[in-house]
């Protein structure tokens, strides 16, 4: 039997945040995660949910320019922040990184892939010449049960090379 005061827990809070360049004003329960807000309140379902525990990386988004597991952030904590989701990457068509994911055979069931692409994008931005060992380390928070790990590393290397030669 629950002793909790359900109505208090469900009391809404007002949050303003920017998602992919668009301002959103939301009224959500205080316990609503950023992940659920992105998926259910804003309707962007490219960001995926698996563990809801910060362990799998499926929900990876950019929050003020740094990647986070959006299941570990409360929507209310993102007040005034700017959020970038997978949908923001490919507005002008597939990115070089996304193309390399396909070419390398990194995409199987695909559920983990948006999170993988976001984490890889962040890695390429911070360490454009990452070596395989560094790639593995940086990506180790993103689980893939289809285990396309070798393919993903190959895709990131190929994208890094493309970016390096076009610089």
């Amino acid at each position, binding site marked *: *039997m*629950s002793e*909790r005061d*359900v109505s208090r*827990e*469900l009391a809404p809070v007002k949050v303003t945040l920017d998602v992919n360049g668009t301002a959103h004003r939301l009224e959500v*329960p205080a316990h609503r995660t950023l992940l659920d807000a992105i*998926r259910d309140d804003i*309707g*962007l*379902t*490219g*960001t*995926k*949910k*698996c*563990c*809801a*525990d910060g*362990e*799998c990386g*499926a929900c990876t988004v950019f929050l003020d320019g740094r990647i986070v597991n959006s299941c570990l952030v409360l929507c209310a904590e993102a007040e005034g922040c700017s959020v970038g*989701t*997978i*949908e923001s*990457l*490919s507005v002008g068509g*597939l990115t070089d990184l*996304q193309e390399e*994911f*396909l*070419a390398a*055979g*990194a*995409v*199987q*069931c*695909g*559920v*983990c*892939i*948006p999170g993988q*692409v976001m984490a890889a994008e962040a890695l390429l931005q911070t360490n454009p010449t990452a070596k395989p060992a560094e*790639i*593995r*380390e940086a*990506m*180790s*928070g*993103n*689980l*893939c*049960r*289809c*285990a*396309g*790990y*070798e*393919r*993903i590393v190959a895709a990131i290397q190929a994208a890094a090379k493309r970016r390096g030669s076009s610089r």
Partner: protein
Amino acid sequence: MTADPVPPERGAPSGHGAESYRAIGRPVTRSGGAERVTGAQSYLTDLVFPGAAEVAFATIPVGCAEIVAVDTSPATALPGVIAVVTAADLPPSASRFGISHQDRPVLASGTVNFHGEPVAAVVAETSDLARAAADAIEIEYRELPGVYNLADALTSDARLVQDPSIRPRDPLNDTNVLETADYAWGELEPEQARTHLIVENTYTFPMVTHFPIEPGGVVAAPTDDGGVAVYSPVQHPYLLQRIVADLTELPLSKVRVVAPDPGGGFGGKQTPRYEPLLAFLAIQTERTCRLVLSLEETFQLMRRSGCRIAARTGFTQDGQLTFHELSADFSIGAYADVAPRVMTKGSYVGAGPYRIPVVRVAARAVLTNTTPSCAFRGFGAPQVSWATESQLDAGGRQLGIDSLEMRRRNLVGVGEAFICGDHEATADGRWHESLERAAELIDWSEPVTPGRGRGIAVGIKPGATSGLSQSLVRLLYDGSAIVYAGTSDMGQGARTLWQQILAEELGVELGRITIISGDTDVVPFDLQTSASRSTVFMGNAVLEACRDIRLRVRRLYAEATGIDEADLTDSPGVMIGPDGAMPLVEAAQAALGGLRGEFVGQGTCRLRGVQGHPLGGDAAFYEFNCTAVEVDIDPDTGELLLTKHVTVGDVGTELNPLQVVSQDEGAAIMGLGHTLMEQVLLDDHGRIQNLGALDYRIPTFNDVAIEMVSDSIENNDGPGPYGCKGISEGALLCTSGAVGAAVADAIGVQLRDLPITAERIWTAMRAADARSAE
């Protein structure tokens, strides 16, 4: 009989080489890939169902209990609650259901038989309200002495997991043994005389869970015609349709199953579990009802059976197997699901792909108060392979013969029987080639660096033993095409292969081919997506549909042009007439003429079973794999570093090398999971202790070998299109055996319990040190 150990060039074609195909054998990128890298792909929980009500379950925190009373009134009283349903509220037709055994209740009734089994379901306006209401339900229960492991389940006074009334005609219904399988051949006595060494050991294989990155869920909605639509990311939509139709007493035509592409299945999304309940909730409330599962709930929905295998094996002095006896107990959980089949099929190949004069395999599917186990990549084969491969190495170590040589001496050659008796099974591939290729790739002949160890092992798994796949292909006027094929594309890339087959056979451009699947209202019947069958079964059905279209084009072209049909030849992608060859799509357009229209082709692939066969029929093909690994063990901590991991599959023909590599590496790394880290742990109350991603580790980027090599042998000798075989499971069949052998090679001690954790290695090393100090 001797085998041919000389490996050919990679992919050397025996008949048709890939170079003569236009689309087959090419690394075509995944159909649906762009959607998956951009997040546009809609999995079940991404679909929008306006006005849907949300469902949550009430459970109790023990694995076995009598339900004394359920007070739903505190939940019913809450705002936004539409319905609260217990087993008593379901219609009489909501009987127990299942595939081979009708033993699973739609909702727990009378007892809870495993941790997490739902006792009541709440339908509410939002998921928060549904959760709060489910938590408010008061369940009074009396904990019972559940059986949570094999030892407890098999004692003579063990509590019965299933009441005998659930299987009244079963002579074993007063035990926890649900089914048994026995395979035996050969006379023991003469072989004993030849036997120089007998090795006897017991091995264990842990319960592990599928952990799909898409936990999934179910949505059910009443339809306008008085039926019900069920949305579920299942591997077997037509099975689900049948079971829901049976339970709701609706005709098949009024049960529509929509199966969005699963976000990972691995066998865990084959059988119906909560779908019947959701169908009843939708019918009762006249609302669309949505259940979204958490990852924790999927741990309580699917797992691989754990296994304990006692093995006794005889060898001649030069390492030839003389006899092999196995008794394997599979801990299958509280309800049958497909676990009896897992036990039967896995133990069928229990003796491995070897030439053994005498074999005795006795296997049992044992009920326990745990999550019902189901299909999981490998389907029982990895469990028994762990024991048999380790036995070969144990014998070899004592005889001074290395792992490779042990396999060279015992592995059957092509056409040679490895299962004897009334229903003999023979090697359908040149398996020695895979063995030699893997040995070469791991540099077996080079000395091992001190502190490291190397292991090599082989595995087989029978493919489907019966099956039916039907498909339709429509070649449209403008030369584009639509394929209707019921295979669930859960990551293996089935759609890509159907595109390649159409491109090959009809000459349609890949980008102009649409694949429709996952909707029983539209797509013809397909038995199931399992056992790596689809490329062979559905592939042949699509191929036949294409050839049907080619015949129709030829006939109509002859009629339309007045050319004698006998002067026309249809061949892949082209039509050859008196004036030479023309693209088939152009011939099709010319044949259709001003009325336009389209060609519809139909294809069926049917494999009937064999009466009296222990598996119900001969396997359409065998998946064969050889895995070789090199490990580095830290002598102070027991930590294992995988320095190299080689997997070689006997694939027949690679229809798409990119997808073959993805599947092969994926399976291999998944195999590292149950080998090195994964196990579901239970407490004394049958509760899963490591429930969720925080405590249950699966392989990450950091767990993959420093160097990983995936290769294949192509002899175009499979029963599928262009000589292919199924390939999606091979690379995890013998991962454990290979790693176990490498660890033994490195530390001099063989481990027999999976997972091989650093702690177990460390303990084994210390025990060995203590022994040698004595």
